[in-house]
């Protein structure tokens, strides 16, 4: 990599391994196909087209590649869920609705290296024998949409997309579809509904697993931008070589987006599991700001459960003995953090130092989730505004200690009872913030009568209703 020069201030840290982000912020690199071809672009595609589609799937399965959208489902396995003997067209949708707060990896790919994604998509489409693919791009990426459109044209002109790709007789059309600015469109079935032009309410699973009943009732594979780019890496390196690198159960590189109270926030591409959270924050990100201490970390986008930095976790040494550790000792792969009750999700690490008020942080998250709830199912639609109102009242010092428990109880009532994972996404932060920073919440409350009305309307309602708990 010595020949690659990066823009000043964007040089990779020595512990990074730039694969997907190889050309991000690289001097002289443009989103054009010229740059990409000069860098060895579309070689993986040629390799794939020389194989049988089933062999490509096998290769990806062998690689152990797991989806990078947040859930971490094995990509190759997902591809095999298309019903056997299917006669309907198969669609592939690239989920570029990167809307999880704290996540900003895909935006660099689509803005600076679009051909990498196109190549990954063509390989994936070829593997599942889709002849129509859609890039679902969020509304907030207007520039990327222009860049991507141009890139698609270039790719078609060069025979990498369109009819008879590279003379193999394989046809593929890729179109770009713009979202309209909704978090829920990042949920795969909500996204499919959005493409269909109906309200992006997520569909119930079962029966609407996209690989079986997806877009227009046809089998549909929905993959994240980074996942598709990783498919290209798998083809370049070979499945077994890919699987050998990084954490055993989540191989390959990971892109981590660090935001919040660190000296050097930004993106970092690392070999999965090669460093710990502590190394990431202290070495790569330069540690906390002047005179500050790290207080809390949200390890995988806004919906992941928050971790306290002074929390004592129980881990295991390689010899099986138990050891006490902190979040800083947890390696950065997909599963390690899950063992401690959170998730590494989409790789968006949000860091908070001791200047932050946790109830305020939670209110901010609640405001986001209350605004972004689609409103389809009852617990999420009604619970989110309630949680926002409660956390607002706590922050304003108008709440009683019981209200803190009520807030947690509302979250418990949402969790696990909704149509899609939004129920967990909105309730996990509340559960974790209150459990782990309870004293901060209680400090803001007053021993006021919890039954006291908080507004004229509830004062009126109070005449008829009593609360007995």
């Amino acid at each position: 990599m010595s020949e690659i020069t990066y823009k000043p201030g964007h040089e990779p840290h020595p512990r990074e391994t730039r694969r997907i982000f190889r050309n991000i912020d690289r001097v002289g690199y443009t989103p054009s196909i010229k740059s990409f071809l000069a860098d060895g672009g579309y070689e993986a595609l040629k390799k794939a087209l020389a194989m049988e589609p089933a062999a490509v799937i096998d290769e990806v399965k062998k690689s152990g590649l797991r989806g990078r959208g947040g859930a971490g489902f094995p990509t190759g396995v997902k591809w095999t869920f298309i019903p056997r003997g299917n006669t309907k067209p198969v669609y592939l949708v690239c989920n570029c609705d990167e809307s999880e707060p704290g996540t900003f990896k895909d935006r660099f790919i689509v803005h600076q290296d679009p051909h990498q994604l196109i190549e990954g998509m063509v390989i994936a489409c070829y593997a599942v024998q889709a002849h129509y693919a859609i890039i679902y791009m969020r509304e907030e990426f207007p520039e990327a949409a222009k860049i991507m459109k141009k890139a698609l044209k270039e790719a078609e002109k060069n025979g990498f997309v369109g009819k008879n790709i590279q003379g193999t007789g394989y046809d593929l059309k890729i179109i770009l579809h713009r979202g309209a600015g909704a978090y829920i469109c990042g949920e795969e079935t909500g996204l499919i509904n959005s493409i269909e032009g109906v309200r992006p309410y997520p569909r119930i699973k079962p029966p609407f697993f996209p690989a079986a009943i997806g877009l227009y009732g046809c089998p549909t594979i929905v993959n994240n931008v980074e996942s598709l780019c990783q498919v290209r890496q798998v083809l370049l390196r070979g499945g077994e070589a890919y699987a050998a690198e990084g954490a055993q159960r989540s191989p390959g590189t990971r892109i981590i987006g660090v935001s919040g109270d660190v000296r050097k926030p930004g993106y970092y591409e690392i070999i999965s599991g090669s460093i710990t959270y502590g190394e990431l924050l202290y070495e790569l990100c330069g540690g906390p700001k002047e005179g500050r201490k790290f207080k809390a970390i949200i390890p995988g986008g806004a919906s992941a459960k928050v971790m306290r930095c002074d929390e004592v976790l129980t881990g295991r040494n390689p010899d099986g003995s138990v050891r006490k550790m902190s979040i800083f000792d947890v390696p950065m792969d997909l599963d390690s953090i899950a063992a401690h009750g959170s998730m590494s999700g989409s790789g968006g690490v949000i860091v908070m130092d001791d200047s932050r008020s946790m109830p305020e942080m939670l209110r901010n998250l609640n405001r986001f989730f209350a605004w972004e709830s689609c409103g389809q199912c009852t617990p999420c639609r009604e619970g989110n505004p309630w949680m926002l109102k409660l956390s607002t009242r706590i922050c304003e010092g108008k709440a009683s200690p019981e209200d803190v428990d009520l807030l947690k109880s509302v979250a418990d009532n949402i969790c696990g009872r909704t149509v899609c994972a939004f129920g967990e996404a909105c309730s996990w932060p509340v559960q974790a913030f209150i459990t782990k920073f309870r004293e901060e919440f209680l400090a803001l409350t007053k021993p006021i009568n919890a039954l006291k009305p908080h507004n004229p309307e509830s004062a009126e309602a109070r005449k008829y209703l009593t609360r007995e708990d």
Partner: protein
Amino acid sequence: MSPEQPILPKDAAAAEGKVNVQINGTWYRFPKGTRIADACNSVEVHVPCFCYHPKLSVAGSCRMCLVEQGMPPRLAPGATPTYNEDGYQTIQWMPRAVVACANTVAENMGIRTNGTVCTQARRAVLEFLLTNHPLDCPICDQAGECKLQEYTADYGSPTHRFTEAKIKKGKHIEIGPRVNLDQERCVLCRRCVRFMREVVGEEVLGVVGRGGHNAIACYPGKTLDSNYSMNVVDICPVGAMTSRDFRFRMRVWFLKSTPTIDVNCGTGTNIYVWSREQQVYRITPRQNDEVNSCWMPDSHRLNYRYINSGKRLLTPLVKTDAEAPQRAAAWEPIIKAAAEQLRLCDPGQLAFIVSARLTNEELFLAGELAQLLGVKALDIVPRRGESDGMLISADRNPNSTGAQIVLHKNGGTLDNIRRGIKIGKIRSLVVLGEDVTAEAAITAEQLAALDYLLVIDHTENATTQAADVVLPGVTFAEKYGTMVNVTGRIQRLNRAIDPLGEAKADWEILAALLRECCGDLPGAAAHATSAQEVLDVMAAQIEELNGVSWASIGNQGQQIIDTGVSIPLIDREKANK
């Protein structure tokens, strides 16, 4: 496995195409593919639902039907399942509740609705629904038949914890000429949206707003003006959609519902008539998957005000002289006089115009009377319109098929009767339940020129005004009887209210006339004391009705012949299954 080994329940069930399911500790067998909600409800284990409607696609969004579910534990590779002494595998219960509407039963599945998982889930969902609900039950029309009210009483929490300001939404929105919307009461089950899209096929209703501000609304430039719009009122589980016709007129718990059938067209839509103290307040559809599914057209539903109108005939009327006004008379003498008059008529100069809006029993008695008098000229008044491709039949008579079966008449000879009246060949006329001036193109002058005109009808019209004798009959809501719909299905009419004033059911009047006319001759039908007995007589005499009885028809009707006519909406529903 030795041959003596008893057959496992799973194999026994599989042989029938069924699966074994344990519901609240008891094992049942259900056909494969049955929804958990349907399975539970069929064995009297109540699963509350807001959004699930058996005739609409599954939304799974209200989360009210959450139940605890369990399956046999997943086996390690190579392991064989173990069965307990009853032949079932142990059930491993899942910590998360699942929706009963979207999931189907499976072999050895366990369902629990009485455990903490389910109880907590229901309680939580109800609490959420009530946070922004206006709680205006005292002035809400749905109160008494509101699912939110019922479920809160059954499964809700006795206390409430929400003390914030509620989200405000639109109230009293006239989304259509017959339906009002209150967005605050709405639980967003979207049954109305799915009904309009899937059954009516019109994209009219949709959801607007994000998250907690979700609300039902019409698409821009659209109104809910379909002739099936009021069905959304029926399927709305709460008071969000209310009927503008019924709003604020009566609390539903005072109303009595009588299962009967609609008489506005040949479909014979199954309905409930909702009445209180001899007054009909509303009509709603009743489920019958062979006739009208769960729906009915607004035009039929709202055509009930004539039942309690001021134009109803309440006493027998008689004209003593051609020029004299009609005056009230007592039943007994007037029946006697009428019978005598009919006997005096020359049968060749007497004609019967009967109505295919009458019941089979009435048509049968009218036929008997005509036969006894030797009258050949008898026919119904046909009424044709256009089918709407849904539930409204092109035949606007409710009992044309019955007239064909009982009297072998279909309106084909009405022209002859009309001509006979015109040229003066027919001098006397008996009209049953028809305004012949409006429907049969016989003028009031022609009626006035007749020697004798006997009319049995329930409401005053030009024909009754011209009559020498008017005998007050009743509307469909006041009598028992049977009718045969266009497909050949015999269905029952039930009495919802008593006959108004001194009016009598038409079959009673006809039986009385028959008794007077035939004198001492014992006519089985004439001596019947109920419509059901007339039906028994008919069943013995008419081939198509052989074996039919009041009980065998039941509330869902009985297919007696196949006319080859079908109901478009039912065809579609069956095709979609």
